[in-house]
């Protein structure tokens, strides 16, 4: 027997049942498809062409679906795709946003703003640039995904198949640097591999939102070294030896001399000798590597300064030195006149288990 005093509470509890199941506006997982790569290129008829690579689980395996649509805006193209796919498109697991080179060269500010605005696309999603046709790229890489479901993420995963040459840039970093006065990013340029899933061609130098040039992998390695992004050993070949760089620490210090920005960069490398040809001493090998890295870094800086792209964040070290009003002119007025004072030192940790050939 329910006492009358408890009746309102009971009614309230029963009413709560209508809300608690949480079945409102929620589409079940089997009614969703979760694209992992979104490609953005220019369309033939409309401005944008959005291509999605969608893994679709089948009875035994996964099937890769590549769909694309053209529209005047990105969201229109996506909603067009959503209409044509039988399930609901859910972008919350997007791993990579791939830009066609022409889009990247024209500037990606609006595209990045779109992705940031919707909260649906995770801000950790990585960005990359490709020269290939978007659809064929997605189809080719899709085949390797079928063989190994995680092969795509391993390419970019620091704990798996990532290589120190590959510059990693996430959506939030693009948003950061597009608006930042003193910092840029370098996006990886990738293509579908012949034997492997992806091949790394180099890095796209960005100046604010526009791609202004491309650097080869050995230079993009230096970008990562300058940003202290190396968490893995990397092999360097000099004239007479192969060295494994196992540790690196780079420090930058900015100063202004006679109105010109001067950047002091100190790179400290620790390397292990893997192979050597002539019987050179440790000191000689070390100075070979030092010299090689320094000249290459100086070349890289010339290139970046000419392109007005600052992916190593040189400008960050002048934020405290220049007045705020001047910071906005960093890329135009100061960065091209920057003097780089690069100081590399190499320590040979060991030569393996033998001392001489």
């Amino acid at each position, binding site marked *: 027997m329910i006492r009358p005093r408890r009746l309102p509470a009971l009614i309230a509890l029963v009413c709560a049942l209508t809300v608690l199941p949480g079945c409102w*506006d929620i589409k079940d997982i089997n009614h969703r498809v979760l694209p992992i790569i979104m490609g953005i290129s220019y369309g033939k008829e409309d401005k944008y062409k959005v291509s999605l690579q969608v893994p679709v689980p089948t009875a035994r395996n996964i099937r890769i679906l590549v769909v694309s649509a053209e529209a005047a805006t990105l969201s229109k193209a996506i909603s067009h795709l959503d209409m044509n796919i039988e399930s609901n498109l859910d972008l919350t697991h997007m791993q990579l946003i791939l830009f066609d080179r022409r889009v990247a060269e024209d500037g990606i500010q609006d595209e990045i703003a779109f992705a940031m605005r919707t909260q649906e696309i995770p801000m950790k999603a990585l960005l990359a640039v490709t020269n290939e046709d978007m659809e064929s790229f997605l189809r080719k890489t899709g085949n390797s995904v079928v063989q190994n479901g995680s092969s795509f993420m391993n390419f970019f995963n620091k704990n798996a198949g990532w290589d120190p040459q590959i510059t990693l840039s996430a959506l939030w970093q693009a948003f950061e640097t597009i608006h930042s006065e003193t910092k840029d990013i370098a996006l990886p340029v990738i293509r579908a591999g012949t034997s492997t899933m992806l091949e790394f061609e180099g890095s796209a130098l960005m100046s604010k939102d526009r791609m202004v040039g491309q650097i080869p992998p050995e230079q993009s390695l230096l970008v990562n070294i300058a940003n202290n992004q190396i968490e893995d050993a990397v092999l360097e070949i000099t004239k007479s030896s192969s060295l494994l760089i196992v540790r690196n620490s780079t420090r930058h210090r900015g100063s202004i001399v006679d109105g010109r920005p001067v950047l002091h960069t100190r790179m400290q490398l620790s390397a292990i000798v893997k192979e050597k040809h002539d019987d050179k001493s440790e000191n000689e090998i070390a100075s070979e590597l030092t010299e090689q890295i320094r000249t290459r870094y100086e070349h890289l800086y010339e290139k970046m300064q000419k392109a007005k792209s600052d992916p190593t964040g040189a400008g960050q070290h002048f934020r405290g030195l220049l007045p705020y009003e001047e910071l906005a002119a960093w890329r135009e007025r100061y960065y091209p006149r920057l003097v780089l004072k690069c100081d590399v030192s190499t320590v040979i940790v060991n030569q393996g288990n033998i001392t001489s050939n």
Partner: protein
Amino acid sequence: MQRNPSRLPIYLFIVGTHTGLIFFLYAHATLRTTAYAHWQPAVVYICIEALCLFLLLAGLARVPGKDFADLFIPLGKVASLLLLTPLVAYFLLVSLMVMRSFAELVRIMFVANTPMWALLALLVLLFMFGAFMGGDSILRANVVFSALFLPVLLFALSSCFKNADFHYLYPLWNSSFDFLRKEEFYSSMFVVSPFLVIGMLPSLGPLRPRGVFLTMLPIWALCLIALHIPILVFGTPAARLLVFPFLATMDSVSLLWLVFDRVTLFYAVSIMAFVSVHASFLLWSIGRIVHKRFPKCPEKPVIAAAAVALFVWGLMIPGWDWLQNMLFWETWLRILAVFVIPAAVLWRGLILSRRRAAP
């Protein structure tokens, strides 16, 4: 009412109400006041809060066990109405603002299609339920929430440092102090307002001014940290574009070893707990003050009426920009509540204690 001998729930409650704002609206509110060197407005806010808190506590300490209503009602019908009406209105506005902003956050983040009334109804019912339970229960609930969610928030906070670039702290000094001339600075002053709830605490337990100030120290440190995390991660210009900078910062953290893909979910749930504690307490305070001023009005119907007002008002705001505009319109009310009320409490405290000393 049963007195709780431990002061911990009270101190945790002060932390909880602040947390609800610091991790939620504080960063955006402060970021929009100026273009760079945001620690300056933040420190000014802290100084304002410290000063007003000092006035309030100095007044309350002289008359133990009395809250806003007990202090102002003996002033007479008109004077008490003049002081209590803006206070009640301000409490209502703060609850409206946190409720509506939270609903907007949920809509931006998870459920873009859910109608606003459903979100607001859920929140209002929750706040009303909390307020019905009474101040003591809200304090106890807050102890549980603090134990559950403060570690989560602090973990999420520290994980953000992974992406931080400390060069964005520069330029350090903005000698123009242009924020003092900006409307935004005054409309964002709601971030200092949680200290006003302390004026309703004396009836729930003894307050020790030193303890309250010691509790505020980590809160103020947290204010500065919570403000700077979006700046360090996104850089000042990009951080200023974000509506919920803290949410975005948390979303940017990639922790591969964590079981959960998005730390943001924890963040939203934790924020909701503290926002509910804050808003429930404000509703309860409104019921209390009105009941004491008009003893014929029982507390619960007043709370229910306030909740319905919140719901209707929340629905009438069509969008985010209107909410921001509303903040501009009620600036005068905010300044009144933040400065005049503590000063009045001190004045009443001085008079009452003198009267008691020389009868």
